[in-house]
């Protein structure tokens, strides 16, 4: 397992991560402590709301609201660049014309064969 190689959908396990064993400077420990402090604060807020006996409504999660808002409003920050225009054309415009052309020519060819009587109607599924 020592020659484990990462892939886009397979991350390195924590026990093989060199950061666990080597990069343990005081700055990183302080950073981890600061992250823990932020996390503890959020936990405290949530627990206060959760265990409040006078609470009648659902607990609203601002992070969830922000995520939904960000996913629902991408066009507010959209800018037509080379990449975005190319992607828009490739996914929106090209399939329209390409599929029309493909289906039309295939159907026309089949119609010609039917009219000429050369269409072979086989029962086999694999051709």
């Amino acid at each position, binding site marked *: 397992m020592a020659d484990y190689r990462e892939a886009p*959908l397979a991350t390195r396990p924590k026990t093989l991560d060199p950061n666990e064993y080597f990069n343990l400077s005081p700055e990183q420990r302080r950073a981890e402590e600061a992250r823990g402090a932020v996390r503890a604060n*959020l936990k405290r807020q*949530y627990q206060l709301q959760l265990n409040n006996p006078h609470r009648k409504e659902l607990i609203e999660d*601002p*992070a969830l609201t*922000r995520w939904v808002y960000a996913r629902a*409003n991408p066009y507010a920050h*959209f800018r037509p660049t080379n990449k975005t225009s190319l992607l828009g054309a490739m996914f929106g415009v090209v399939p329209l014309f390409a599929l029309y052309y493909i289906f039309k020519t295939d159907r026309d060819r089949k119609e010609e064969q039917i009219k000429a009587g050369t269409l072979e109607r086989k029962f086999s599924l*694999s051709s």
Partner: protein
Amino acid sequence: MRTSEYVKQQQPVNMAGVGFRRWAQALSKGKGSGISALLSGCRAASGLSKDSLPGPYPKTPEERAAAAKKYNMRVEDYEPYPDNGEGFGDYPKLPERSQQERDPWYQWDHPDLRRNWGEPMHWDFDMYIRNRVDTSPSPVPWSTMCKQLFGFIGFMLFMFYVGEKFPAYQPVAPKQYPFNDLHLEKGGDPEKQAEEVKHYEI
């Protein structure tokens, strides 16, 4: 309009009519033009305020610090998506890791999602839930898995193609009937002698 507010007895008021009347009045006094005048110019006071919702890409360090605070992250950890017009704004770029990778034994606020309340969500959070895409370490290297899967599929496809080209089945022949091909049973004349049909050779 005013009378409906001071009504003492139980008279049913058409609230839809009240709302429509108020909307028409606001429209006539409104400053906007076109479609924006038809839509309401203000948002409800419930929900988050404008400064705690995602905004445009942060350009100055102060904007970055404010955005990091907004998303409950440290300023050093906060990294927005690159500003190339793809619609991310100032949303933070979190590591591409699925929820399956997170510690199953920690007391999460939402255990099925393995997430705490208020934690910034990944842009593709709905893709990285435990029912869907999983990025946890694989027991066998990825290349080995790919080779095994596609090797097997390719081999089976090739063999099926070969089987179509060169079919192999038991030898068959047309069915042989006795009594001169069932001359009497098929309605032939009993007096007439049927032609001799020989199915064998000794």
